[in-house]
């Protein structure tokens, strides 16, 4: 007599949601001293009741020594790193800075969520490289 052993029928077989924005078509600049979207850096994913991991990798500089470059993220318009955000100070003229701002959310409600990367300068012009030689990436992963 044969027997069949059944496993748990409740396995979550849905792969984790993810999204990314890879820019290589041209650099991005801003003169905004209030947080604005890093143009085009918006990802909408549909998740389960799980946290997400989000981050970005950039090469940046400000053409004014001493001026801040600030990065932050929003999840459904809620800032994730306080009202200011993560600060990079331009220490020397023309110096390029590699930055990788990143974070993890608390458990989100199941459904659609929009994650955006934002930035601003303290003064001068902020420049973010995004070319075929120096790419730029923004990404979001559901953790499950």
């Amino acid at each position, binding site marked *: 007599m044969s027997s069949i052993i059944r496993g748990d029928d409740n396995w979550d077989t849905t792969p984790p949601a993810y999204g990314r924005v890879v820019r290589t*078509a*041209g*650099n*991005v*600049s*801003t*003169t*905004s*001293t*209030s947080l*604005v979207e890093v*143009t*085009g850096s918006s990802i909408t994913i549909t998740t389960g009741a799980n946290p997400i991991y989000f981050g970005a990798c950039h090469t940046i500089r400000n*053409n*004014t020594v001493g*001026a801040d470059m600030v990065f932050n993220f929003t999840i459904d318009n809620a800032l994730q790193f306080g*009202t*200011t955000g993560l*600060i990079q100070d331009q220490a020397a003229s023309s110096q390029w800075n590699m930055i990788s701002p990143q974070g993890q959310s608390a458990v989100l409600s199941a459904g659609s969520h929009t994650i955006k990367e934002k930035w*601003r*300068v*303290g*003064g*001068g*012009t902020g*420049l973010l490289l*995004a*070319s075929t030689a120096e790419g730029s990436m923004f990404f979001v992963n559901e953790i499950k």
Partner: protein
Amino acid sequence: MIVTHEVMIDCTSMTGEECSDLCLTALGHGTDFNLKASSLTDTLHGSVSIIHNDSPLPHIFSIEVYETDEAPTAVTSHGITTGRQSTLARPAVMPTEQDLINKLETLA
């Protein structure tokens, strides 16, 4: 007011900051229409964000002009000042969206 517009510009012979400054000049950047802070405590009337796409793709502009005044949000804690130190102000003469687009088109 936020104006988004695309213009074909070849900026391969200049830095991104130089291209940005060129665009600011075309938009009338100055004391009465200040789009870039030259000091941390400047009063600003707007800002310009640009995707400097390489040809044959156009540059993509996002121009924000402040319609209401906003005081600085800077705070000092443990001797460190963070937050926005600039003041945002509505320009005395509010440009129209078409004004800004026409000025950008002079760069083409």
